[in-house]
């Protein structure tokens, strides 16, 4: 099977079985699997960090580095490098929110989001972009977040890129990505190489199931081990249920519910953790939901509002040659051409990328069933897929979604798809089909229940123009959840200030993608790392009574 893996080149690799978490735990690092607790437990720390993804991981490392006693709480399981076997049947139920079947309330958008130690960084596809200048400029000018300039953020991004091995992918892209570059060039659309957070990557292509060689520089192999090595305590399989407030609206503790080992329901064991300060990093669904459950102050009704998804369209092409979209680094080429066509708050733009192709992800995404579906599946090795990530949250009518609570306290995300979105969706389906035909596709099928695909660009152009674009008929996916605890220049405009500090709760810092007041317009992990590094550095100085850092 190795002959089907294009560009399987090994960079210098140290120990292929390196698993810093497993080694560290064997050496005595502190980890509590809450599903194994037999009795209610009380713990105490300087800082409790809720969530172990991009924001929580960086916070854990920086705060432990500052000598603070840190407890890191994660609802998902601790799975480490040696556990990852590149199987969808294991990865989705174990490592993803809702078994990778999380959906918006109307079920029109499927959301991929991690739920495991390392959060989405454990399962993402490694794309690492700085927050685009256009986005920062909009935040500064339209939203008054004047501190967040390209210049002021640059050193934080640079530090995180250095920490996590981010650099443009130096290896030949796999065919799935190569065809994006080739097709785009033919239609005059520039593409670029994606920076990835990897060291010693083998170009396998299974990033979404947890990197089996520890090459992806996720929080699981970088910041979390660094924090544990400095004495931080990790508690996995503990659901953050409620923050407990004093009458003065300070948080005095976190009430956590131990999960059963299968991760589906809580056991009856409670864990209470007291601390001076709380860092909320449960992701843009989980963080607002915890604050809503805790009845946190929300005087301006902003909590859980303006949740953004980069709602994503999918287009599948079939080529006469093999593409082997499951082999090789999954995302290495992108185009921002269609993001830059209009003003940032004009008609919605979209970023073009490719997803990895795996049997479960591909078969469940593809429309239809029976013989037609089977025929399309038989083309699997010849399939090339493009995705268009729509930049939401800038246009006055792109208001995103809203996180609220179900009667059982679990979060639900309402995200209405309106005309402003569908107009962009149609342009995106057209742009992808044009590029795929230009790259030599025999057939292109927008993922939509109303079409079997088209055999030429001319046919696609007519067909897509007439496709009825509406929820459930047109497949929409998302891997980026942002907003809900947005930064604002003043309490009337945000849940937290530009340093992530909650406007009403003095000892709470929000430190994850829920901070973003719009979508990012790029895969968000590096935006989270950079902002977390900046905000937590400020927090660490304050908690240690050091002079405040002189940064904007």
């Amino acid at each position, binding site marked *: *099977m190795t002959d089907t893996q294009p560009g*399987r080149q090994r960079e210098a690799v140290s120990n292929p079985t390196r698993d810093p978490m497993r080694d560290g735990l064997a050496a005595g690092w502190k980890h509590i699997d809450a599903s194994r607790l037999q009795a209610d437990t009380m713990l105490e720390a300087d800082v409790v960090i809720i969530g172990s993804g991009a924001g929580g991981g960086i916070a854990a490392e920086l705060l432990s580095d500052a000598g603070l006693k840190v407890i890191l709480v994660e609802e998902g399981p601790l799975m480490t490098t040696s556990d990852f076997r590149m199987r969808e049947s294991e990865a989705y139920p174990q490592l993803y929110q809702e*078994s990778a*079947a999380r959906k918006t309330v109307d*079920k029109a958008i499927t959301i991929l989001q991690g739920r495991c130690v390392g959060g989405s960084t454990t399962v993402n596809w490694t794309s690492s972009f700085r927050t685009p200048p256009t986005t920062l400029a909009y935040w500064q000018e339209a939203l008054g977040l004047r501190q967040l300039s390209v210049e002021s953020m640059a050193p934080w991004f640079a530090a995180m890129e250095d920490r996590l091995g981010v650099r443009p992918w130096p290896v030949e892209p796999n065919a799935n990505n190569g065809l994006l570059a080739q097709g785009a060039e033919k239609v005059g659309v520039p593409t670029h190489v994606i920076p990835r957070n990897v060291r010693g990557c083998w170009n396998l292509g299974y990033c979404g199931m947890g990197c089996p060689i520890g090459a992806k520089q996720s929080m699981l192999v970088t910041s979390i081990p660094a924090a544990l090595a400095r004495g931080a305590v990790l508690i996995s399989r503990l659901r953050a249920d409620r923050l407990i407030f004093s009458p003065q609206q300070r948080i005095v503790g976190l009430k956590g519910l131990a999960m059963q080992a299968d991760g*589906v329901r809580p056991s009856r064991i409670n864990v209470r953790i007291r601390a001076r300060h709380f860092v909320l990093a449960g992701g843009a669904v989980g963080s607002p939901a915890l604050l809503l459950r805790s009845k946190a102050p929300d005087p301006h009704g902003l909590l859980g509002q303006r949740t953004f998804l980069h709602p994503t369209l999918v287009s599948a092409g079939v080529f006469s040659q093999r593409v082997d979209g499951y082999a090789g680094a999954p995302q290495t080429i992108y185009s921002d051409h269609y993001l830059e066509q209009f003003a940032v708050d004009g008609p919605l733009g979209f970023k073009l990328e490719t997803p990895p192709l795996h049997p*479960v992800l591909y*078969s469940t995404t593809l429309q*239809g069933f029976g013989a037609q579906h089977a025929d399309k599946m038989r083309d699997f090795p010849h399939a090339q897929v493009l995705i268009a990530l729509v930049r939401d949250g800038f246009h006055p009518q792109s208001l995103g979604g809203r996180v609220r609570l179900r009667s059982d306290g*679990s979060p639900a995300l309402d995200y209405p798809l309106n005309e402003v979105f569908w107009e962009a969706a149609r342009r995106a389906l057209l742009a992808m089909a044009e590029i795929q035909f230009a790259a030599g596709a025999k057939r292109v099928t927008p993922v939509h229940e109303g079409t079997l695909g088209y055999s030429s660009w001319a046919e696609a152009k007519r067909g897509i123009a007439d496709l009825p674009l509406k929820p459930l008929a047109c497949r929409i996916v998302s891997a980026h959840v942002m907003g809900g605890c947005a930064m604002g220049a003043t309490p009337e405009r945000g849940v937290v200030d530009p340093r992530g500090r909650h406007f009403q709760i003095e000892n709470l810092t929000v430190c994850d993608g829920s901070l973003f007041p719009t979508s990012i317009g790029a895969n968000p992990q590096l935006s989270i790392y950079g902002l977390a590094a900046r905000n937590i550095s400020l927090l660490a100085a304050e908690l240690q009574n050091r002079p405040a850092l002189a940064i904007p």
Partner: protein
Amino acid sequence: MTAPVIDRRTFLKTGFAGTLLLACVGHVAAASDDEEASMLTAISAALLVGMLSGQPAARTEALSSTVAGVRQAVAGLPPHLQSEIADLFSLLRFSLTRRFLAGVSAPWAEAREEDVAAFLESWRHSRFSLLQTAYGALHDLVLGAWYARPEHWAAIGYPGTPEVF
């Protein structure tokens, strides 16, 4: 948006009503597991036309592992999704709602594949978003359970995961 919207509350009420009706006619025990297995088998067979072997023993075996895979997947979902799926399965296995909502007149074990496919196709394109989402759930559960299994990879030319060590 799609025309008249039946929201989840309505769905739940219908689900509860179906369950209640089931209790009244006293078939709860009899209709439970076997009928659900027949229902999932019939639906899987229709969704997997073109992939299923024509050889009866292999077909039966493949369908039963698919149904087991669907059940395993459901068991791993959060409680709110498990209860939605349970409502859907109750509606489908109860004969009145099977006829009325799915338009399948024969019991699942005897249902013709074309009839099951016609029901799935009608839900797929239904003007009721409730039925569209129910189709979506069946589509994802069954196809996911099928393609998760390594024995079904050769048929689509997927070489499987690489040998790492």
